[in-house]
């Protein structure tokens, strides 16, 4: 009995963990690396979901439909970057207002173009034994970790990653070293958009799709980005793990989703207060101090 209870709890944690990671990762790349607060993040996710659901309704198999969602969101992000976002680099707070405007426009445009609801996609893979939950959540969990791993590899180990990081840290110097910084910004934004599109695609079967779909991701995403701190990938992982556990534990112990949600938000407030630079900023300080003391 206790074993099953523990499995159930683990499964609930996995569900919320995967949700936070995937909700956050696109935003984290764009915010952490480029200093753009993208309040239209939810609507990037919306583009991915709509593209997926309409591609699926048109007869594409689900994986291909999801790929369509990712590609279209990346293209969409690219166009937006060229037209609007590139004027906002270094203007953190202005970027917030502009993307808020974009979000208003997009929700309403989607409504005008596609109506108030989009066709549904059932959750694939059926049911898991023992925990009686969707097997698809295992896939989401694996993909969440996989995405973080892939990003880590991309930014730490590839030539592109080195150049991208150099650009984000000091564009001036990077340019003098011969890096096409404009292109680096463009591709990083496209990657962030593609990730948002991926989230939209993956959650298209789990959540019903309406023009308000993207707003359901926003709170978790912002909280996790800030709690995570400056280091995008490790930060997202740690913040999602931490916030996900708080949510899962409180929901389970009190048997109330409300308390789980409020506990998660309060935990975020306290974390920011204790670690003003987020978890990774705090770890960095600890590491430096430890280095000095040795």
């Amino acid at each position, binding site marked *: 009995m206790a074993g099953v209870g523990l499995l*159930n709890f683990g*499964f*609930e944690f996995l*569900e*919320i963990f995967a*949700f936070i990671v995937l909700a956050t990762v696109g935003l984290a790349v764009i915010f952490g690396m480029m200093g753009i607060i993208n309040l239209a993040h939810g609507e990037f996710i919306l583009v991915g979901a709509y593209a997926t659901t309409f591609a699926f309704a048109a007869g594409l198999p689900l994986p291909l439909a999801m790929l369509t969602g990712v590609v279209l969101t990346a293209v969409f992000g690219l166009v937006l970057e060229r037209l609007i976002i590139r004027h906002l680099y270094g203007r953190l707070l202005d970027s917030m207002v502009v993307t808020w405007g974009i979000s208003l426009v997009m*929700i*309403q445009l989607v*409504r005008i173009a596609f*109506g*108030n*609801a*989009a*066709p*549904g*996609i*059932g*959750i694939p*893979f*059926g*049911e898991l034994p023992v*925990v*009686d*939950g*969707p*097997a*698809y*959540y295992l896939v989401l969990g694996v993909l969440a970790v996989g995405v973080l791993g892939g990003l880590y590899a991309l930014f730490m180990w590839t030539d592109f990653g080195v150049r991208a990081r150099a650009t984000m840290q000091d564009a001036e110097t990077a340019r003098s070293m011969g890096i096409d910084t404009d292109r680096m910004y463009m591709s990083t934004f496209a990657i962030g958009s593609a990730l948002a599109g991926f989230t939209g695609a993956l959650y298209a*079967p*789990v*959540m*019903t799709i*309406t*023009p*308000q*779909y993207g707003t*359901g991701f926003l*709170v978790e995403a912002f909280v996790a980005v800030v709690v995570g701190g400056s280091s995008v990938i490790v930060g997202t992982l740690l913040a999602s793990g931490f916030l996900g556990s708080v949510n*899962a534990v409180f*929901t*389970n112990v009190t*048997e*109330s*989703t*409300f308390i*789980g*949600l409020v506990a998660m938000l309060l935990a975020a407030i306290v974390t920011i207060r204790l670690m003003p630079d987020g978890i990774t900023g705090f770890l960095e300080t600890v590491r430096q101090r430890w280095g000095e003391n040795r």
Partner: protein
Amino acid sequence: MQSGSDGPTLAVLEDRSQDFALTGTPKYRTSMLAIEEINRDGGILGEEVDIFAPDPQSDNMLYQDLTRHAIYREDVDAIWAGYSSATREAIRPIINEHELLYFYTTQYEGGVCDKTVFPMGATARQQLGAVVPYMIEEYGGEIYTIAADYNFGQLSGDWVQIIAEEHGGEVVDEEYIPLSESQFGSTINRIQSADPDFVMSMLVGQTHSAFYEQRLASGLTDIPIGTSTNMAQEYEHLRIDPPALEDVYAGVNYMQELPTDRNEAFVERYYNRWDDAEYINQEAQNNYFSIYLYKEAVERAGTFETDAVIAELESGIEVEAPEGDITLDPETHHMEHNMHVAHSDETHEITFEDAGTIGPAFLEEVGCDLTSEAEQTQYEPGAYYEGI
């Protein structure tokens, strides 16, 4: 002054953007349909009806300003406004101050007893009174309640408990879920371990409808679900792929699928007028018949003057609604609805079980009589029933 201020003007404030657009748009459309039909047939008292129909964008602050605009600038004779109870409460102080005739058409928690307000939708007690006894009869008495964590959800949960006890059932557990929640894993786990005879769902909104997809993928479809909120409002059975809503039973006064000649003709007129429309939900039908109800009352009164119209509305007036012939209860200003239990099968085909005419019993019990006392109150069951 404003254009056409000499003729009658009706205000229709229904959301066509933001959160409530999904449910507000059909309400707007059936209202337009009714008014256009009336104008084609010679208007009300021979006068063409003007329409003031802004888009309040699901924003309560905007609702308040637009209600003032309707009163001061458009000089409207009556108003149809709002989906959520919060919206109704947001504009009710203004409505009361100006004693404006207000038709609120959403199915709601019940209890509003207000001289100029006519809640046309079925109350929680009317809807749950149809579906809960039916479910206990069919499946047994152990109930697990899940509901949205706000006024409507909490009061509906109370009503489930009251009605269950009246019919020999029992609520084994209840859970209230924040409106922003989209991940239902832990809730589904708890339902599975409680293993009730059926679940009562008063989940609300497009975020919550994710519950049904997750229910299917968690193998929870073997536990039937009774509901007062799903299908008839946000047409989940058409938006979500089958069989996620298999064995969902809704207590309703109307759904688009109702197989009567009168309703089928109404549905045809609606889709002829709005060819890209998605659904006619319960409240959209309520808007439609209540505009005709208003016309009837005005014509009996022979004037648009509010007091005279209210007097006629309080005279036991009847209307030929798409759901059937229904009567307005004079004392409580609510409708005595023809209730049905609508069942969705594994292909999301809807069939109906007649649940008879159910009146606004609760307000009668608490002694709301607007024909003799002009109150402006909202009653709640907590004060009148033990143990909730």
